[in-house]
């Protein structure tokens, strides 16, 4: 391993000045000569058929260039793995409310939007089914859950173990639909040059968008270029190609002009994915000494009629605690709703709410401290698979967090601490997230002036990835960061992992390290850099295939203090404390921000966020940021984030586990456990809104 100087430092974001001065351009701001605007028309029924679209009146309006519908839109090609959600305007079926049924294209954004508002669409509606329930008659077991895990697992005999367990916790938890709301709405501008397509798009991975567009438009490899230099957040909603990019490309083909499509905030609630609601049935059995004898986690979630999306909600229970009898199950139901997608820590975020709440209930039932319960049930290998862990420092995180938070003096009794009109409580929960790497390619070039350029189709969605990758490349090249330029967000740099699954840095750093090492090797051989420079390429596909089978996960512990107003049921969060064991932290500043951001989003999940489905219409009715509440500054007080110095050399060359998601895992449970400790009432349904708290206090 090379000596590190840049890695670990709290380097400021390299593009910070460009961003705060407005010089950094986002997809929706890229000006292309002669471009026009497309505005999406969404269906106003949840299920049925478009019987007529009368475009004449709209086409007659000033500035309107075209109205694309299923009648005249370019035909798209599909492959086996094509995301059916991208087959926009291909037929007259309406499969959910908010589906794109037309694109109005005009000279100005205002003209396009006015046209879209006025477009006359006639439907033949059919009865829709949009109500998610754990007893829905059409629930089924999917073939696998995301991304490719077994649907059900079973070790031992859970039923027998529960029947003879001294203590049993049997409880059902639920989480609502939650909507990714990155600051930058989805946007793309597309331009054709013959059969070559260039798209500036807001996404978490330009090569995956390139791949999808190549297939959809039946183009030759290399004919599509996707550029995403700056992206204003994604939280998973930009993890795959979204319909706006396809519509922009279709519009551009149809009008033979560059077309920009930007979604409105309201449109995002139906068109970019969201976290499925879940219902989770937990059964935990323990001996009198608080040793788990059985753990069962049954998770229900919804998917759409367009394609199957099976959230891996119960995955977390397969690895967290040493239960000799362990069963997990997933069931989904396809409703007439928009397709749920990835949202920060898919699976683990809702799953941890149920598991870590149930563990808290078990600790109470057993009369042991919740940290002690977790210590007693710490597994030596992954309970479900029997695989060894590459590293597992959960207990160290719990102990370190307990120290920082001041857990030792906690009185376990609920509902007894009061400060004026406030009830006070504290809670704890564990966090975890898989640490995986995926194949990526990179190129490293040495220039004659002694500087270096690294190219990789990485994506910086505001996380600081560009900066972290510069630090990694600089250390590998034994050069100061100022001499290393890392170029990202251009699909022409070759295939690479998306910024998703907390796998970005773990995957890209591998390819970069490999390319840089290769380059140093070449430089060593040739002595001096030729005037045209010298480049080394790397592809990690084989390296990743050759990885040993291990259970690789990051772990963490989260502590929360809440104050509950007895008069209003309002919950406030004066303190959160998170301690994480996530391998090597590349940039102390942006890394801390990621974890704080995850925990802040956890506050939203616990207390605020809830997409309200209206069965009358079949959509999430609170589709804007005034009615869908995410935390604001006033909701966020002290967040103490730290990490354990963890060296795991069985991950990837740089020793990275990924930190994008683990911050939100466990936060909601820690808060719910704290609300229980404050009030004596267990909230098994999120979010813990004032009306629900007040009703429980009555």
């Amino acid at each position, binding site marked *: 391993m090379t000596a590190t100087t840049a890695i670990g430092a709290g380097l400021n974001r390299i593009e910070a000045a460009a961003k705060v001065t407005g010089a950094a351009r986002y997809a929706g701001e890229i000006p292309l000569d002669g471009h026009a605007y497309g505005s999406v028309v969404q269906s*106003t029924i949840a299920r049925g058929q478009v019987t007529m679209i009368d475009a004449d009146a709209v086409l007659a309006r000033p500035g309107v260039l075209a109205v694309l519908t299923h009648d005249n839109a370019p035909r798209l090609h599909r492959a086996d793995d094509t995301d059916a959600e991208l087959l926009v305007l291909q037929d007259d079926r309406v499969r959910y409310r908010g589906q794109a049924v037309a694109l109005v294209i005009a000279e100005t954004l*205002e003209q396009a*939007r*006015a046209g879209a*508002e006025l477009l006359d669409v006639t439907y033949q509606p059919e009865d829709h089914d949009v109500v998610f329930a754990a007893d829905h008659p059409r629930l089924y077991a999917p073939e696998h859950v995301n991304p490719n895990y077994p649907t059900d697992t079973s070790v031992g005999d859970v039923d027998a173990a529960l029947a003879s367990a001294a203590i049993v916790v049997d409880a059902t938890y639920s989480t609502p639909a939650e909507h990714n709301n990155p600051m930058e709405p989805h946007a793309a501008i597309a331009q054709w040059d013959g059969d070559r397509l260039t798209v500036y798009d807001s996404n978490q991975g330009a090569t995956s968008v390139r791949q999808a567009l190549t297939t959809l438009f039946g183009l030759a490899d290399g004919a599509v270029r996707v550029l995403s230099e700056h992206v204003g957040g994604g939280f998973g909603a930009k993890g795959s190609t979204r319909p706006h990019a396809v519509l922009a490309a279709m519009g551009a083909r149809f009008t033979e002009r560059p077309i920009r499509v930007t979604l409105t905030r*309201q449109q995002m609630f139906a068109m970019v994915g969201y976290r499925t609601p879940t219902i989770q049935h937990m059964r935990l059995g323990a001996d009198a000494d608080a040793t788990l004898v059985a753990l069962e986690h049954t998770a229900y979630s919804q998917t759409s009629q367009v394609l199957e999306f099976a959230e891996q909600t119960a995955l977390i229970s397969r690895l967290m605690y040493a239960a000799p009898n362990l069963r997990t199950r997933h069931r989904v139901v396809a409703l007439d709703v928009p397709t749920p997608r990835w949202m920060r820590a898919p699976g683990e975020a809702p799953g941890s709410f149920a598991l870590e709440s149930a563990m808290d209930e078990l600790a109470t039932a057993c009369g042991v401290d919740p940290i002690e319960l977790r210590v007693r049930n710490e597994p030596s290998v992954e309970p479900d698979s029997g695989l060894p862990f590459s590293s597992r420092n959960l207990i160290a995180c719990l102990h370190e967090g307990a120290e920082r938070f001041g857990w030792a003096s906690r009185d376990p009794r609920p509902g007894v601490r009061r400060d004026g*009109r406030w009830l006070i409580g504290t809670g704890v929960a564990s966090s975890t997230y898989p640490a995986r790497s995926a194949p990526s390619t990179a190129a490293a070039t040495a220039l004659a002036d002694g500087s270096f350029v690294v190219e990789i189709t990485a994506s910086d969605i505001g996380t600081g990835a560009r900066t972290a990758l510069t630090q990694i490349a600089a250390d590998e090249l034994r050069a100061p960061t100022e001499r290393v330029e890392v170029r990202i967000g251009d699909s022409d740099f070759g295939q690479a992992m998306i910024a998703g699954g907390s796998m970005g840095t773990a995957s890209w750093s591998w390819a970069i390290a490999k390319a840089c090492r290769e380059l140093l090797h070449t430089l060593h051989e040739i002595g001096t850099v030729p005037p045209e420079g010298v480049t080394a390429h790397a592809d990690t596909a084989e390296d990743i295939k050759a990885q040993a089978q291990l259970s690789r996960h990051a772990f963490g512990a989260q502590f929360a203090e809440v104050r509950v*107003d*007895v*008069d*209003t*049921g*309002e919950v*406030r969060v004066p303190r959160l404390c998170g301690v994480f064991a996530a391998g090597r932290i590349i940039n102390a500043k942006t890394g801390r921000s990621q974890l704080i951001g995850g925990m802040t989003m956890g506050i939203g999940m616990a*207390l*605020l966020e809830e997409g*309200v489905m*209206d069965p*009358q*219409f079949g959509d999430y*009715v*609170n*589709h*804007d940021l*005034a*009615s869908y*509440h995410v*935390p*604001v*500054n*006033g*909701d966020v007080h002290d967040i103490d984030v730290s990490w354990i110095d963890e060296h795991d050399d069985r991950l990837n060359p740089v020793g990275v586990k990924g930190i994008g998601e683990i911050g939100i895992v466990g936060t909601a449970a820690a808060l719910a456990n704290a609300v229980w400790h404050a009030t004596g009432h267990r909230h098994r349904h999120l979010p813990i*809104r*004032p*009306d629900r708290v*007040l*009703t429980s206090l*009555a």
Partner: protein
Amino acid sequence: MRQFGYERPEYAADAVALAERPEVRYLAGGTNLVDLMKLGVETPDLLVDVSALPYEFVQEDLDGLVRIGAGVRNSDLAAHALIRSRYPVLAQAVLAGASGQLRNMATVGGNLLQRTRCVYFQDVSKPCNKRMPGSGCPARKGDHHNLAILGASDQCIATNPSDMAVALTALDAVVHVQDHAGPHEVPLAELYRLPGSDPQRETTLAPGALITAVDLPTLPFARRSRYRKARERASYSFAIGSVAAALDVEGDVVRDVRLAFGAVAPVPWRARTAEAALVGGPVNEEAFRAAAEAELAAAEPLRDNAYKVPLITNLVVRTLAELAAGS
């Protein structure tokens, strides 16, 4: 967004003349109107910007009456020394609303006439009796967890979202209006209408009426007044229940009281039944609770908003108790 014209007159008479047609809207801070235009809920063909009119003043006359111009920004109102010292309930209510940026733009006139936040009202793809008379009220069966428990009708259960208006209602504010018939005054309590069978009519104002100022009558005991707002997040969200209160205590008897509720009715709700129950009565939590309960006896909660009854009751008890303790 559709095409519209824009005028910025300097005289009220010109503004009123321009605004006579139903397709015209006054534009103040624009923080509500422009949003509704983007949503297609409001489709004016002409905006008459009122920001050049001479209504950015807060002044006191010889009798101690305080007059606030309709163009005063919410931030300036909340920060004004006269308001903070004499009518703290008003300063607190304004500060409890929206966000710093919005309050810098929002005006007194615009705040009074902001529209309901009912999600169906704001979505033109759905029916709504207020937006499209006779089309139905989906909120009744749908999402109404923050809609009315008092004063609603079969036709509409929307709530008035303003915090400021709740404080003004408690203070017996009087609104100065100019319309085609000339200038006149309307007590705030008579400005708003209950929905009844025509929820699209929210005020008693004539079409094109311009709000020019709001008067605060002298109310010495309002120096001891408070606004308490409950909401789903700590800041930047509308009330799920709020109480504006001023209390005048002599010995252990309530001499006078003003009480109004927010986020429970289509209008800022003056709690006259509770006030009557309190005046002359003892200064204790039992009496406060009984008064709140008397007011809320008329409540007709729906499936998801029954929590507002205990919420408002608790807020009344707490706010009055705190005012009493401070006196």
